[in-house]
């Protein structure tokens, strides 16, 4: 660019555009001042809300510590654990089938298949007959013991 020595450019630079009016300066000043106030108000509100939330959490924790709730023990869980440790899933029994029936049909089928395959080497036909031919009435006393 060689406009540095351009007389037209120098002539243009000699023209002075009007400076902004005091009203413009005042308007910008007021708006910038307002914009700086708004965040501080927002911050105060946010801080207040955070304090209240923290106070609520602290009191909840404190009250919970003073009055500890008894540990809820479901009646079914200990027997299940005990029975589970007593009976072996890999062996066919009334308990494992009842447990599977409580789950779903697929679970029962899977269990039957598992036991069938486990005993396939010995006498799968006998296992199948024993399982399927026994009536529910014969199971009842056994299940009643559980």
């Amino acid at each position, binding site marked *: 660019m060689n406009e540095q020595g*351009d007389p*037209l450019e120098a002539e243009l*630079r000699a*023209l*002075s*555009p009007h400076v*902004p009016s005091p009203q*413009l300066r005042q308007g*910008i000043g007021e708006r910038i001042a307002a914009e700086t106030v708004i965040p501080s108000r927002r911050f105060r509100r946010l801080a207040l809300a955070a304090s209240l939330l923290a106070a609520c959490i602290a009191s909840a924790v404190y009250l919970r510590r003073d009055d500890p709730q008894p540990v809820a023990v479901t009646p079914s869980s200990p027997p299940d654990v005990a029975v589970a440790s007593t009976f072996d899933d890999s062996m066919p029994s009334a308990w494992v089938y009842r447990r599977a029936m409580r789950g779903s049909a697929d679970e029962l089928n899977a269990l039957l298949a598992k036991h069938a395959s486990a005993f396939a080497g010995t006498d799968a036909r006998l296992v199948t007959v024993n399982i399927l031919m026994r009536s529910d009435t014969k199971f009842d006393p056994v299940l009643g013991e559980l």
Partner: protein
Amino acid sequence: MAGGGDPWQLWLDQHGAALVLLARQWVGGRADAEDVIQEAFIRFWRSRERVAEPVGYLYACVKRCALDWRRGCERRSRREQAIARPEAESRFAASLEDRERRDAIEAALVHLPEKQAEVLVMRIWGGLSFPQIAVAVEVSVDTAASRYRYALERLREQLAEEALL
């Protein structure tokens, strides 16, 4: 200049006059141009720290706001009126001794293509570098420099025609 200590006032002192001139390219009247500048300046001030080239961004904000204003206010007819009567509200303080020459330059400026005029205003009265202008008008540096050169050539031609009349 009624400069103040606040940083925003320093910005306005340095660029205010050029911004008014730039905005009047689209807005016409000085009062409307100052309304546009106020809006643009606030927009610029909120985001100035997030931009890589704040000077270019300031001019871009003014251009954007002026174009919005023009779209919203059916500015075209008002601008045509302003072009028809450039002497009604001069864009420059009477710094040139030859008032006729000043008026001729002003009329030639008004008739420049917008893309060339904005670059000329930014360069001559805003003191922006070509990279800053490139940011402001969203073109390459070479394009900004070319537009400036074309603007000067066109002004020169128009002023020569004016002299012959």
